[in-house]
């Protein structure tokens, strides 16, 4: 099975508010997918649907299983971190390791102990005695020791200082990710992860507005820095967005070939953040 998540016509309403409007997307094995969108766009609803934490309409398959009816099976092979602060404060580190060992069939306790030994987390400490960064390290150590096919991360580095954030992704890449697994991550800190991603999903008002691999994005979206004389020419080619940088104009084009744009000036790849802003402003 190469498709780990398959969504067709996925919808969800909370009363009169439609959080998801018939969304289609898929996640293949061996990919790192970034799910980006403003607050309230529907990111969390998508994640909750995948994890069987909320009801939904439409067709959704995770590892070929139905999250509403087969949640228990799904959770043997899917892990998630729903923001860092969810480990119970009274839990001792050693007890947490013991608990997961006894409860999770795919947990490799030696790996967890190995990861923990590289931190300064005392085995006898309770979660309430640890700093936020250490709690994140503990949670990650546990999660990386689970032989999961899919890892879902919902703002996993929220509130962590930069050292812990960098180490978080470093560890994920070095110790966990391989071609047999996929990671689906949402975060506000796009810059931090844009180079890690293989695929990009933008969501706005319950709809997917961009669904592409990073390679496709590199080919399709090109930024040109244009001098004043060429501004009119550039605008005639229907840029998707425009911004001013140091008195020069930068235009973002979608689907226009490099050859056509080269005469206008220096070509750049837009950052995911700039692309995101462009897509959010589109049609407004």
């Amino acid at each position: 099975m190469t498709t780990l998540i398959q969504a067709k016509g996925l919808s969800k309403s909370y009363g009169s508010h439609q959080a998801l409007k018939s969304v289609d997307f898929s996640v293949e094995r061996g990919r790192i997918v970034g799910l980006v969108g403003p607050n309230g766009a529907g990111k969390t609803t998508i994640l909750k649907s995948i994890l069987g934490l909320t009801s939904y309409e439409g067709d959704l398959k995770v590892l070929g299983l139905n999250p509403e009816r087969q949640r228990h099976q799904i959770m043997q092979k899917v892990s998630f971190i729903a923001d860092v602060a969810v480990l119970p404060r009274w839990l001792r580190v050693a007890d947490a390791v013991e608990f997961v060992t006894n409860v999770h069939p795919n947990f490799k306790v030696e790996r967890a102990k190995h990861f923990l030994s590289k931190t300064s987390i005392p085995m006898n400490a309770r979660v309430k005695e640890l700093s936020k960064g250490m709690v994140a390290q503990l949670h990650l150590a546990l999660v990386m020791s689970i032989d999961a096919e899919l890892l879902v991360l919902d703002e996993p580095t929220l509130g962590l200082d930069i050292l812990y954030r960098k180490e978080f992704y470093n560890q994920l890449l070095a110790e966990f990710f391989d071609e047999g697994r996929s990671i689906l991550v949402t975060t506000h800190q796009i810059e931090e992860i844009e180079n890690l991603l293989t695929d990009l999903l933008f969501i706005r008002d319950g709809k997917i507005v961009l669904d592409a691999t990073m390679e496709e994005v590199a080919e399709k979206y090109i930024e040109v820095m244009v001098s004043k004389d060429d501004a009119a020419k550039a605008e005639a080619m229907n840029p998707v967005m425009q911004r001013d940088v140091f008195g020069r104009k930068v235009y973002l084009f979608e689907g226009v070939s490099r050859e056509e744009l080269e005469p206008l000036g220096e070509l750049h790849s837009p950052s995911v953040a700039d692309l995101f802003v462009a897509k959010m402003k589109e049609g407004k």
Partner: protein
Amino acid sequence: MSIAMVNSFKALVKREYWEHKGAMFYTPAIMAAVFAGLMILGALTGDHITVNSGHGFSIIDHLPQAMEQFENLGEEERSKGVQIGLYGAIVLFGFVMLIVSLFYALGSLYDERKDRSILFWKSLPISDTATVLSKFLAVTFVIPVFYSAIIAAFQLFLLLFATVAAWFGGSSGIAIWASSNLFGVIFNSFFAIVTASLWLAPLWAWLMFASSWAKKVAFLWGTLPIFMIVVAEGWIFQTTRFIEIVGDRIANGFVILNSNMHYMVGGDMFEIDVQRWYEVFGNIEFWVGLIVSGIFLAGAIYTRRYRDES
């Protein structure tokens, strides 16, 4: 049930202990230590110590007199006296245990939502059924076992204390031990406590169910529906059957706890019909209670599984 499921369940019950060590162990242990301490202190400073056991059995420091009186009693009288003293320990510890169980049940499916740790538990392959049942087992069985153990230790202390007091009264104190029926007392105490807790299972299950959907202040959600039913019944039917049933059940729970004492003092402690712990299992109400518990637990499991935490 596979080995994995059993291990998983054991881990869940152990988790309840880790989380509630304070209420399950330290509370009764510290209580016992404090009482023991007070008794020793009082004895040393010569103050009057009264150990109330429902019928005014006092240990005064007219020790030689007391010992002589004691030894002059008949065998049966002596035995009753000692056992009443020992069963007396259950009155207060048992009451505390019921309060602890009440708060435990109310918090059982609420606390994890309040501190969001439910998102950690839900990230692991543990079923809602196993989770709810492990908590039910904790309140109906684990808490009673802990309290029974501490009570037994305290009962042992009471005997030792009485023995030492006897020495000071010029007696060897052997009579106290001989008439104590200590193992019988511990045995009966344990079963009375566990049976009382099981008798109150529908109460615990109801509170667990309330804790699974309460948005805030689980206590209110636990009591409000009962209050509403009582009011509705009074208004529609002009009867008070519901509150009578609920009240009866709760009162009986406390009664069963102290049933041993009741019979030891000649059936004078309570005015109602008192069941001995082993008679409870022959009472159809007990089994109906378990079925009702099952219904509430099913409700709690369903709610925990499908409730949408936003």
